[in-house]
């Protein structure tokens, strides 16, 4: 078990006279892991996060970081020892991107030249072009601003990162990109990250551990995401996790048992001279169209020769070898031919998989778990 970095001990936050925003929270957060606080609005997840760097002071209870009570150092110094990323980037409009990233090192007394040099490095770390450093925040897209926000949080190399719904204001495609980027960064940096979101998908994708908060500021379940999907602690967690949790849970099952079959392929040039499916061709006449590098382009449908259908239809999602059962099943279900396209690490076609076979693997896995109980 990983060592605890942040500990909440019977922490309660009550705003004047009202119901508690956070109610008697006791939990410990692992060092070097991503812990996600998730829950509906008003569940106290953001309040809990903001109590770690004392942006909110608890009504009672103590919080320790690295074994030290957070109230033992001045609030400003405590905050400089933790990176903070928020939903709206919160970048200073009057400062260039570089100077924004350099904020905390400058507060710590690092010289302007050194702080800017470090900022320039960080631009690349978070995947931004070095030339963006001279721009002002208003000249960046939302996704770029969030990347700058992450770079700013990393600038002083703090052991702890607090992220308050950092990706919820960007569009889904960019969000997906930013999530991957965060996981990639985390592999190199191994920070202790506390991440707040209301999106259970984001929580299960990012979290090493997920804490589900219920209304009234109570911690409903705190476990690995796989366990939360497989065994919700109560009805609240089950309903919050949602109807697709069975499908989502597949994201934690390896696809080792899935067979990859051969598939007949043709190039676009061959497709022009293709006379359609010869009698007895397997798979109802579907053929996979690939480019010269064997990367999938789409499917040649059975109706192509008679003119009964389009010559080529777009393919479904791709299953990269070694990915989870969720991806395998989705690839098969989303493919017009009923066959999921499996590709290797370079994106070349490796073969096809069938939904029925993926389901068989899932069922076999369930039997094994059942036997183990």
């Amino acid at each position: 078990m990983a060592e605890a970095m942040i500990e909440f001990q019977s922490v309660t936050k009550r705003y004047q006279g009202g119901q508690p925003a956070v109610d008697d929270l006791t939990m410990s957060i692992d060092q070097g892991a991503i812990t996600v606080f998730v829950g509906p609005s008003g569940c106290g997840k953001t309040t809990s996060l903001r109590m770690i760097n004392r942006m909110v002071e608890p009504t009672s209870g103590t919080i320790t970081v690295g074994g030290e009570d957070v109230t033992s150092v001045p609030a400003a110094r405590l905050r400089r020892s933790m990176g903070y990323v928020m939903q709206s980037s919160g970048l200073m409009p009057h400062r260039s991107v570089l100077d924004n990233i350099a904020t905390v090192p400058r507060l710590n007394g690092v010289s302007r030249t050194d702080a800017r040099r470090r900022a320039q490095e960080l631009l690349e770390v978070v995947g931004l072009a070095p030339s963006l450093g001279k721009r002002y925040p208003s000249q960046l897209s939302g996704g770029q601003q969030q990347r700058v926000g992450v770079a700013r949080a990393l600038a002083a190399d703090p052991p702890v990162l607090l992220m308050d719904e950092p990706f919820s204001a960007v569009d889904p495609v960019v969000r997906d990109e930013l999530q991957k980027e965060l996981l990639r960064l985390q592999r190199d940096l191994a920070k202790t990250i506390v991440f707040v979101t209301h999106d259970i998908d984001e929580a299960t994708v990012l979290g090493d551990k997920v804490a589900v908060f219920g209304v009234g500021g109570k911690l409903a379940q705190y476990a690995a995401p796989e366990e939360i999907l497989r065994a919700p602690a109560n009805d609240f967690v089950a309903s919050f996790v949602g109807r697709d949790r069975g499908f989502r849970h597949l994201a934690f099952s390896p696809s080792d048992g899935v067979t990859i079959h051969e598939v007949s392929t043709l190039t676009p040039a061959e497709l022009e001279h293709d006379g359609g499916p010869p009698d007895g061709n397997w798979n109802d006449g579907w053929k996979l169209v690939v480019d010269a590098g064997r990367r999938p382009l789409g499917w040649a449908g059975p109706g192509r020769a008679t003119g009964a259908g389009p010559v080529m239809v777009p393919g479904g999602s791709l299953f990269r070898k070694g990915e989870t059962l969720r991806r395998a099943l989705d690839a098969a279900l989303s493919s017009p031919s009923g066959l999921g396209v499996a590709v290797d690490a370079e994106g070349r076609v490796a073969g096809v998989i069938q939904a029925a076979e993926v389901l068989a693997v899932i069922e076999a896995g369930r039997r094994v778990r059942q036997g183990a109980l």
Partner: protein
Amino acid sequence: MSNVITDTFDWLADPAHWAGAAGVPARLAEHLQYTGLVMLIATAIAIPIGLYVGHTGRGRVAVVALAGALRALPTLGLLTLFVLLAGIGLMPPIWALVILTVPPLLAGTYAGISSVDRNVVDAARAMGMTELQVLFRAEFPNALPVMFGGFRTGVLQVIATVSVVAYINLGGLGRYLFDGLVLSDFPQMLGGSLLIAGLAIAVDLVLALFQRLFLSPGASSQSNRSRQAAVDLTDPVTAEAVVKGGMS
């Protein structure tokens, strides 16, 4: 009518009016001196209070109410009162003008600070800035465009109003107005008015240039909209409505 206008230009073109202690350059210098003095004192009073109220939110209702009340005071009446109480001299009329100039500066400063995006302030604090650093590194630079708008309004108002000090025996371009009035010398009065208007336009142009050269382009582009709003916010009545709206 055309008589008065040609006479006015004759008056302005007369070299005799451009020399000596009563000449245009000397009056202009006096006018600018008074304006500078009033702005200096008013800024020294209004900016710290405005920063404090804008940053902490404390006393904003009182400030807005006071600013509105002060603005309702009649200029000439206040001037006369100060002279009656404190006697003839440079400072009594200057103080009277300071009292009239503080409200727009105060409202501009307060409005500038409160117009800064709360997320930016929150982030600044979460980065680990102390309260003073939050004020001077996050709020102040981003409030500058709006604050400067209030400053420009104040300067224009003072340039126009400082003319009244001539009423109690001080100099400045206002002399031409009051002397002309006594002598029924309308070309002189109109000439003086044109000079005051010209001075106001020239000074505003210089300030606009200054704003363009020295204020961060990032801050300005962010607050293009809020600068528009600041024009209204320096009016105490609107500012009061904003404050009330913000509290409900």
